């Protein structure tokens, strides 16, 4: 359509002057935008790849952090089949240690992996139980087997030095 063929607009001359000020046709305007878009997408692609590598590095960084060695008490202080609460690695991280029937100890973070309520040891079910939404975790591995939680409880590494029990790390 020629420029002066416009029937909808009664003020075509004014429009023609406007076009002189910005002498870019719609076709070339599209072309420039697409070229810039390609540049933008290429740069975006590079940034996303970099971000992906950073995310992949996070678990390795977390692993590299050193944990303190905290004395939990004497083995005999925790009755077989019973449990005891402690805080590890900081005073704000509640944990639970369970003395299993076979005589070994296992410890987990007490923070439920569903919505962060505190799990407790249920001797009756031989499980770690979250009363908020009836979530159950196995004592042996801390794996969820009933209720809404889908992720296992972080495990606290323990070390026995004679009669004494020490927490030495966190296994996620």
């Amino acid at each position, binding site marked *: 359509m020629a420029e002066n063929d416009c029937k909808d607009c009664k003020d075509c001359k004014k429009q023609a002057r406007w076009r002189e000020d910005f002498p870019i046709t719609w076709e070339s305007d599209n072309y420039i935008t697409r070229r810039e878009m390609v540049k933008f997408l290429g740069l975006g692609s*590079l940034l996303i790849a970099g971000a*992906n590598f950073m995310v*992949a590095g*996070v678990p390795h960084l977390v692993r590299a952090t050193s944990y303190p060695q905290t004395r939990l008490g004497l083995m005999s202080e925790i009755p077989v089949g019973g449990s005891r609460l402690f805080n590890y690695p900081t005073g704000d991280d509640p944990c639970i240690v369970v003395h299993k029937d076979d005589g070994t100890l296992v410890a987990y973070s007490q923070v439920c992996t569903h919505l962060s309520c505190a799990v407790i040891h249920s001797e009756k079910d031989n499980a770690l139980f979250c009363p908020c939404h009836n979530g159950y975790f196995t004592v042996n591995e801390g794996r969820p087997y009933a209720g809404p939680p889908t992720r296992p409880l972080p495990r606290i590494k323990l070390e026995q030095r004679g009669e004494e029990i020490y927490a030495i790390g966190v296994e996620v």
Partner: protein
Amino acid sequence: MTRQTQGTTLFTALLVLIGIGVVVQLWLLAASVDAVLRHNVQIPLHAALGSVIVFLINGGLVMYVFWFDKRIKQ
């Protein structure tokens, strides 16, 4: 005229391909974050490698677009 139309079509097609690549990368990034939060170590590594491969393909396509652009201008 025909040559210009073909060039425009090719340009648009490459743009769409690169766009799809970026969307795939975003999906890989979201999957990585999800895996990290689930304490999985393997999935983010594979996703990062996949993302780099997609970036290389995207980079190749971008280079091709500019090479093509330059050739048309000449």
